[in-house]
């Protein structure tokens, strides 16, 4: 190794030490604790599958994450598709409307949704005031409120990913389809949609993973009535101190995230997208 290469190696050492000792090691310890706390064995995992409360939490998490992902992807695709077709000046305005919610704190967004959706909130006052409904609607502290908040949180991510994918599509392909007499609807379903599959898959993957482990928005907009995995883990380590259950659930969550990424990497289109992003 030349002295120049030795220098380069040394420059990577602080980052390596920091991540290995203070990121990788604590997470490995979580995995280890799930097999040793309170007693050595698979007891925590047996409990995970037998406990009815945990079963309910897992079902809620999967249901809310699935609905959130489908809604987010469909709605974000509509926005990204429109973005690609906008003249530059209009697109700047539209992108600004995407970037403001993207950069504002997740807590501010959850708080805004509470002021809008709660019993005597902005929306219910307007609905009751205008006579559209006689009783205030239950819009928050239930699955509906959690899903609204989560879709609102995830959409800017998905729009940015889909927009990046769509703007790479060669417009000459669309022109070719049009000049061969394809109607707009068939151009959309037979040209745009197949070409956006890698983007849709990547955005879907990210949204599913973010949703499964999401703590803040479900906790605030669900207020304990929509218990998802992350909040359940947080209750275990801060109030009931059941470390075994908390670490076993964390391990399962990590495993699911790992499997999803591994599955995604099997698809050549996705692998290309990941490697393209790495350049």
């Amino acid at each position, binding site marked *: 190794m030349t002295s120049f290469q030795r220098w380069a190696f040394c420059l990577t050492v602080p980052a390596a030490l920091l991540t290995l000792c203070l990121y990788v090691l604590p997470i490995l310890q*979580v995995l280890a604790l799930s097999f040793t706390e309170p007693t050595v064995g698979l007891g925590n995992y047996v409990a995970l599958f037998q406990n009815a409360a945990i079963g309910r939490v897992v079902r809620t998490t999967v249901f809310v994450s699935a609905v959130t992902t489908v809604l987010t992807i469909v709605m974000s695709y*509509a926005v990204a598709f429109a973005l690609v077709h906008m003249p530059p000046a209009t697109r700047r305005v539209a992108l600004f*409307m995407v970037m403001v919610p993207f950069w504002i704190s997740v*807590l501010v967004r959850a708080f805004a949704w509470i002021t809008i959706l709660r019993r005597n909130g*902005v929306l219910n006052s307007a609905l009751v005031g205008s006579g559209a409904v006689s009783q205030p609607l239950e819009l928050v502290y239930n699955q509906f409120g959690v899903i609204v908040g989560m879709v*609102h949180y995830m959409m800017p991510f998905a729009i940015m990913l889909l927009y990046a994918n769509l703007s790479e599509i060669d417009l000459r392909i669309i022109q070719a389809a049009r000049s061969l007499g394809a109607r707009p609807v068939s151009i959309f379903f037979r040209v745009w949609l197949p070409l956006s599959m890698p983007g849709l898959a990547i955005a879907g993957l990210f949204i599913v993973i973010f949703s499964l*482990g999401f703590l803040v928005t479900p906790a605030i907009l669900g207020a304990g009535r929509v218990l998802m995995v992350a909040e359940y883990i947080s209750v275990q380590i801060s109030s009931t101190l059941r470390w075994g259950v908390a670490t076993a659930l964390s391990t399962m969550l990590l495993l699911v995230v790992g499997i999803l990424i591994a599955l995604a990497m099997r698809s050549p289109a996705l692998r290309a997208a990941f490697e393209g992003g790495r350049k």
Partner: protein
Amino acid sequence: MTPRSRRLLERGLPKLVAWLLLAFLFVPVLVVIPVALTDRDYLSLPNNGISFDHFAALANWRAGWMPSILTSLGIAMASAVIATAVSAAFAIGAWVYVGRWPSILRVILLSPLIVPPIIYAVGMVRLWSKLGLLDTWLGVTIVHVILAMPLAVLAIGASLSNLDPRLVQAARSLGARPATIFGRVILPNIVPGTVAGAILAFIVSWDEITVTLFITSRGIVTLPRKIWTSIADAVDPALAAIATVMLAVTIVGLILRMTVWDRIAQRRSRHDFQ
């Protein structure tokens, strides 16, 4: 259906849907502004005129908003400086070093972007309680550095990928020592990426809530933590006031980003071109 109206439907309807969705993203965030200006002392729209009392309440030291803003600023600045320095060193080293080690390390380094933070929170509560670092400045800053490094590495790495490696070869063949090459050839050329990385690192720390929630209690109250407890405790319009301030800062920052930064970037690239 006439061809004309069908065309209108095929072109116009998607556009209308897209703008409605954009409104769904943008408008709800704005609701904090009128609520912050309410003349009542609970969360509501203004009734008889507007009032700035809730903004004045933010300045009241004993209400706890100012101390938490200063705490967050301090931790975010310290984390941004450390994370940027470590990330810049890593990114430069990885760019120069020949071998598999940097690419393996890079995957591990970027993993906080995808691994749910709740898992990291569980691990850090355990580790910090063993080391006595729960609810300390040092403990929070270290965690924020770890979480801020991925975005800093990405930003600095993007800057480096535009750098011509022949520049380094030229410096080496002219006999420059390694320290000179790293400090006076590579570093000055990646200033924009490094600044962007530092800003991103600052924002990550400033916004971090999931892990901070578990490793702090009464001693270190960052702004997100203060907002979290206020949402859980009560419905105080001061919350809407702080949300409005954060919204205003975000909008100003974005407008600066979309105007000034682009202009600087354009000027730089023109400069490079000549």
